[in-house]
């Protein structure tokens, strides 16, 4: 039988396709590739930390490894993961459209993404970059002797792929819904990608501007961020987090959408509180733009700015709490089966709850001062991004795998992998939350001096 997978098998037909389903597959393959690279860097980081003195690699190499891990995982895996793979595949089907609004732009997004990816990959092979994924100035502009520009160019280029994908989804969802599919009937997966797309379109240009300013200072010595050239060292952090905090929600909202589909399906029950779920998705998208300053509580920004950002950070946590309660309530009087996607989804709820609650610690100003820039923060965002988004992504891929491939995965192995992932993440990140409270900072090649911080 002819279908989208076998209608034409030539490489050319895949590389020139404008079919949203095939583009979804292209993304599936490419983000898996980048996931392996980011994972390899993470493995080397952990191997190096197995010896207290970090005897596997030199300090410079270690610094490059965690930078590569962050850059690749954030921009080349997490941000495109659910939106570009599952969003591309499912949005048109869920709203009854033949394809996305701009199919050729959709293919262009993939090419732009790959170009950016190859730039960054080239920079890594060339010698790497050691600024950390946040590129803080003036270190990145004036002090680092590594391939900052090439890496940033890759991220800059890939940003356009995000913008185009977001734009495509927004237009598709607004203009191409089947008659009768009103906003209040829209699947929650589509709602979550709608909110995600708004963030992608509004926040990514700020990242592009920030990276451009960074390049201007690094190449032409135009003083923007380095005080020695008349710049402002904190300006970069404000600009960077004005993008990157909303981007955190790009890395979790789509996962929430996936889980909001899986839980009702395997509980045999409609989602509890649909209206609250849609409103909370939008609230997270909007409030997410107003909390970037909580990354600067100890940076020297004014105490009053700190107070405002702290309060707003608590506010953005409320819709997230509502979602957790609603997923849980959906199980009540349902008919629950623990199939693979459901195990991933329940794992998501648990890990996301841990991530959200560690986030509450960070929103409390006095506590943030102590745990800021320590393993506590690292554990917090790994709960959200790996525990949350990776669980949701894998759950979604399993859930829709029969739809995508026409085949069924092994249920037994599926369950084993879901439970393994959950266990590994809990046992990996829970201890580090606690040893961080005892004062262990991040980005260090050696453990010894700081692990004994309670001397």
């Amino acid at each position, binding site marked *: 039988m002819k279908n989208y997978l076998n209608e034409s098998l030539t490489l050319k037909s895949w590389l020139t396709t404008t079919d949203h389903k095939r583009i979804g597959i292209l993304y599936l393959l490419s983000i898996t590739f980048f996931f392996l690279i980011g994972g390899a860097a993470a493995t080397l980081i952990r191997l190096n930390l197995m010896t207290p003195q970090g005897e596997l690699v030199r300090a410079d190499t270690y610094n490059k490894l965690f930078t590569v891990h962050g850059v690749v995982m954030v921009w080349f895996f997490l941000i495109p993961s659910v939106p570009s793979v599952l969003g591309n595949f499912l949005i048109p089907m869920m709203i009854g459209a033949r394809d996305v609004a701009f199919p050729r732009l959709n293919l262009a997004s993939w090419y732009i993404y790959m170009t950016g990816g190859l730039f960054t990959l080239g920079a890594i092979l060339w010698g790497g970059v050691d600024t950390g994924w946040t590129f803080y100035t003036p270190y990145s502009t004036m002090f680092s002797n590594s391939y900052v520009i090439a890496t940033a160019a890759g991220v800059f280029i890939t940003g356009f792929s995000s913008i185009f994908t977001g734009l495509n989804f927004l237009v598709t969802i607004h203009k191409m819904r089947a008659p009768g599919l009103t906003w209040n009937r829209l699947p929650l997966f589509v709602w979550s990608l709608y909110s995600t797309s708004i963030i992608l379109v509004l926040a990514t240009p700020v990242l592009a501007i920030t990276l451009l300013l960074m390049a201007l200072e690094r190449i032409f010595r135009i003083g923007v961020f380095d005080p020695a050239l008349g710049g402002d060292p904190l300006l970069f952090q404000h600009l960077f987090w004005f993008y990157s905090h909303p981007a955190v929600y790009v890395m979790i909202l789509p996962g929430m959408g996936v889980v909001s589909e899986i839980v009702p399906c395997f509980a045999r029950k409609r989602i509890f509180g649909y209206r609250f779920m849609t409103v909370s998705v939008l609230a997270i998208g909007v409030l997410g733009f107003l909390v970037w300053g909580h990354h600067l509580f*100890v940076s020297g920004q004014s105490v009053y700015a700190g107070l405002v950002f702290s309060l707003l950070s608590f506010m953005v946590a*409320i819709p997230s709490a509502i979602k957790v309660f609603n997923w849980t309530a959906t199980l009540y009087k349902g008919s629950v089966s623990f199939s693979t996607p459901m195990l991933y989804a329940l794992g998501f709820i648990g890990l996301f709850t841990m991530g959200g609650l560690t986030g509450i610690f960070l929103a409390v100003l006095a*506590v943030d001062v102590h745990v800021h820039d320590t393993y506590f923060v690292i554990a917090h965002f790994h709960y959200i991004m790996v525990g949350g988004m990776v669980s949701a992504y894998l759950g979604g891929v399993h859930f829709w795998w029969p739809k995508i491939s026409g085949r069924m995965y092994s249920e037994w192995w599926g369950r084993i992998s879901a439970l393994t992932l959950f266990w590994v993440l809990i046992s990996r990140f829970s201890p580090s939350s606690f040893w961080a409270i*005892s004062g262990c900072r991040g980005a260090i090649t050696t453990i010894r001096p700081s*692990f004994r*911080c309670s001397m």
Partner: protein
Amino acid sequence: MKTDFALFPVSASTIASHVDTVMIALLVICGAITVLVFGLILILGIRYRRGSLYTRELRPKNGNFLEWSWTFATFGVFLGLFVWGARIYFRMHVAPAGALEVSVLAKQWMWSFQHPDGAKELNELHIPLSQPVLLTMTSQDVIHSFFVPAFRIKQDVLPGRYTQVWFEANKPGAYHLFCTQYCGTAHADMTGKIIVQTQADYERWLAGVSGRSAGQRVELRPLSPIVLGEHLFKKLACITCHVEGRGTVAPDLSHIFGTMAQLNNGTSVKVDETYVRAHILDPGAWLVRGYDPVMPSFRGQVSEEDIMNLIAYIKSLGQESKPK
């Protein structure tokens, strides 16, 4: 296996116990919510597993009451936590009067400290017990961060401006100092020690560093930043225009520190460390009302330490007792 791991690091400052109380409260609240969510998922999932005999009759139709209840409950708890954390944060930022002032210069990858009497230390800071200490910090290169886990304080150290942090140690001992803002190759090794001593031990240590130990003929006692600053003030010819008691070419600098300066563009700025520094390096940026832009920039002619000394001198001009 013997281990010295403890959930909380030693608490050695007056603010630490306040921070720990919030953290314990958070651990209890968040622990309870974790148990609640994990417990509910397990109980509901198992009780209503497919094929179980529990009734599915009377499913709740409208969850609005429940939704609003947990929304407001969450809001209430969050508001309480916000106020609690904010009050302590505020205290962390208001140094008590009469604090011992130490200046800190961070650079890749070391900490250098200067005491009020001019004594200098590298990667070690001796401070007296039960005495508020106010650090005025700047960086010579990239952003660093000053973190003493035992004191529960942390403050980024920026190039081009001054940030401050204060603490009052309440337990003698040696405590770790870490840089917590990634700053390049040897970031992991950018550590130090804060050594808290009783007042008597501190005095003895200070005397030793100052070189006044018996038998020494040469006076090794370092000059205080104020004296060094006064010397620079004359050497760089600042004194030619900034004449005390007169303000014809340039403003008289006595008694200006801590006041509000009226600028040419109609705004006013507080005269603090960052203001003075900016004026020395880039005098044209902020013009004081009534004066022409005649002051040259001293960028490249003064080091970060020179600037700190000049600031110390200008600060001292406002005080009643003249420095020696």
